[in-house]
């Protein structure tokens, strides 16, 4: 019990969303509206912060959210836009009040919802470090002590006495993050702020966060859309949906469940129907199986993918082949597999059989793919062709390239080794 550092109980928050204006349909009505406008406006503005029950135009950004965070835990928060992640962080960082519920936190909290809050363009880099640092809750003494380190980390030493308005946006971000990285709170709350800045610096920041949590026992709450980053940093995760917690648990599991939920394709696999079943040789079923043995259309980069093909036939013939081709989103063929349909496999019975292929982990890069499959005698006869089957996604779950999420890095991860290295 004593190592629970954040305890959130039944937290709810509602917002008012703008109601549609009443439109006038006559000129006279319009004139009346113009005169009444200040009164209506006053009521509307006055009510911005008030609510009646069951009112229209009220939106529950958070509804009855409860969870606990242990000391030293790095908790990732994932979910679609508007799921309530940012609202949750805003309440945790005391920016806005909850409508109901309670949070208990043991320790100094620092929230980083933006990089470089309070920067003033006319002040120099050095002055802005003090400005930003004190806004984030540091004292002048603390900043004095860490000033050199902060300037060093930011990599803008040369310009530290130049007004910030002459900085490039990248330099501003670096400076802002350097200040934040040197906070020493027991609880650190970070919103999607790492999405800015260049790769090299992003990597440096992630390293710093990792260091903070692992080596210094700090608790970190982290919101990001980059599942790879979450997977890399967090040991547990919360998946939010419509202002509520959908699931909570180990990061790997949560991410997996989350990925399979965001897929918009309903049918998980191909299943032959009607006339197809009457073909001499046909594919009965074409499915992708994950490591848990379940059909899925979403895989992490680090997962094995099994391709299971169930087929039916009338009689056994040796020259019949099964061919499977993988295509990427742009319809580029990535590979083709050719295998005899009847191998030394023990067939279930005289009418059907199945064959399972396995693709290794860390093979396909994040993206959307699909298969084309056929049973045929090459150059002679095609028995059953199914196109664009099993449209599936590969999602970044912490590969070597996770820092490059969103960038085109090709469709396969390279398999190579360095055999010589000149210095």
């Amino acid at each position, binding site marked *: 019990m004593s190592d629970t550092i954040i305890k959130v109980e039944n937290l709810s928050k509602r917002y008012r969303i703008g109601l549609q204006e009443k439109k006038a349909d006559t000129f006279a009505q319009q004139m009346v509206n113009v005169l009444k406008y200040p009164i209506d406006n006053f009521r509307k503005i*006055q009510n*911005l912060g008030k609510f009646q029950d069951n009112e229209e135009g009220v939106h529950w950004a958070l509804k009855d959210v409860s969870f606990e965070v242990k000391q030293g835990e790095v908790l990732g928060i994932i979910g679609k836009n508007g799921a309530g992640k940012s609202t949750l962080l805003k309440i945790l960082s005391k920016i806005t009040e909850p409508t109901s519920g309670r949070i208990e*936190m*043991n320790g100094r909290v620092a929230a980083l919802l933006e990089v470089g*809050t309070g920067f003033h363009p006319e002040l120099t880099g050095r002055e802005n470090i003090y400005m930003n640092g004190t806004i984030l*809750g*540091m004292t002048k003494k603390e900043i004095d002590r860490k000033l050199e380190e902060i300037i060093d980390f930011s990599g803008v030493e040369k310009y530290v006495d130049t007004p910030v308005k002459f900085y490039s946006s990248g330099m501003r971000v670096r400076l802002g993050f350097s200040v934040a990285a040197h906070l020493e709170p027991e609880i650190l709350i970070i919103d999607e702020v790492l999405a800015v800045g260049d790769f090299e610096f992003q990597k440096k920041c992630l390293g710093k966060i990792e260091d903070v949590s692992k080596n210094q026992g700090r608790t970190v709450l982290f919101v990001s859309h980059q599942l790879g980053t979450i997977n890399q940093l967090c040991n547990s995760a919360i998946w939010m949906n419509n202002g509520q917690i959908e699931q909570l648990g180990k990061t790997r599991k949560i991410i997996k469940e989350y990925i399979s939920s965001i897929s918009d394709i309903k049918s998980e696999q191909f299943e032959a129907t009607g006339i197809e079943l009457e073909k001499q040789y046909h594919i009965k079923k074409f499915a992708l199986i994950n490591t848990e043995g379940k059909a899925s259309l979403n895989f992490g980069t680090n997962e094995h993918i099994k391709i299971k093909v169930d087929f039916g036939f009338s009689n056994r013939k040796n020259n019949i082949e099964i061919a499977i081709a993988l295509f990427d989103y742009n319809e580029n063929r990535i590979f083709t597999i050719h295998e005899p349909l009847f191998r030394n496999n023990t067939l279930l019975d005289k009418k059907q059989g199945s064959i399972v292929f396995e693709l290794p982990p860390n093979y396909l890069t994040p993206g959307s793919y699909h298969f084309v499959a056929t049973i045929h005698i090459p150059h002679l006869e095609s028995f059953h062709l199914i196109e664009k089957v099993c449209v599936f996604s590969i999602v970044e779950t912490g590969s070597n390239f996770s820092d490059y999420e969103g960038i085109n890095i090709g469709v396969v991860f390279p398999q190579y080794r360095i055999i010589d290295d000149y210095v």
Partner: protein
Amino acid sequence: MLANKTVIEPSKGWKFIDFHELWKYKDLLYFLTVRGIKARYAQSVLGVGWAIIQPLFTTLVFTVVFGGLAKVDSDGMPYILFSYLALWPWNYFSGTLSESANSLVANAGMITKVYFPRLILPLAAIFSKLLDFMISFVILLVLLIYFKVVPGLGIVFLPLLLIQLLLCSLGIGMVLSAMAVQYRDVKYALGFIVQLLLYTAPVVYSTTAVPEEWQFVYSLNPMVGVIEGIRAMFLDRPMPWEWIWPGAIVGFILFVFGLFYFRRMEKVFADVA
């Protein structure tokens, strides 16, 4: 268990400002005040010189218009000294009103991204104006020397009047800044209201021009006492306590009300800013 325990709950009713927390953020107050000063005079040729030019020219215009053309009674002292003794605190007062009223709206970006005691913002606005106030004191000194006026013993009460000035500015500043977050009308109204307010205080005219039966009501304006008091102490006249105390009470009430009102509105700032 760690010493810093935070509980977040929806707040209810009227609450007083958390001074302990405010104290923890004193460095922020300092840097925001400095930022306010630096930002105001950044990239201007004359810099803080404007803090001298502005009141000086206003006084000159008043002297020509009210003292010279309209021949307003100035209690038998040179009109320029008479009006400057009033303009010195008045300029500070009116300056802080517009500066603090705008302080939350102008920093909405900060309010929605980081938590800190919001009161710091109007406070910093009011403190950063203190520099101008001190600089414009230089003109006052020059005028005193030129007219060979020696302040009386009453000068020991100056800190008291300055506190009254500060409390009054703070009180109104807190209310206005909190209102301005929700009602942007404040910003537009304030410009001309400050101009009109000038005539509710004895800046261009003397209190002797106020009819006797209205003098008490008139003295409820905290600025009346401040201005009358400052005039009296620099010109070595008896302290006009009858002008000062009603305003002092009103000023204090304004300040306390401001504290409560600000605290009450504080929670919705981030949602409506």
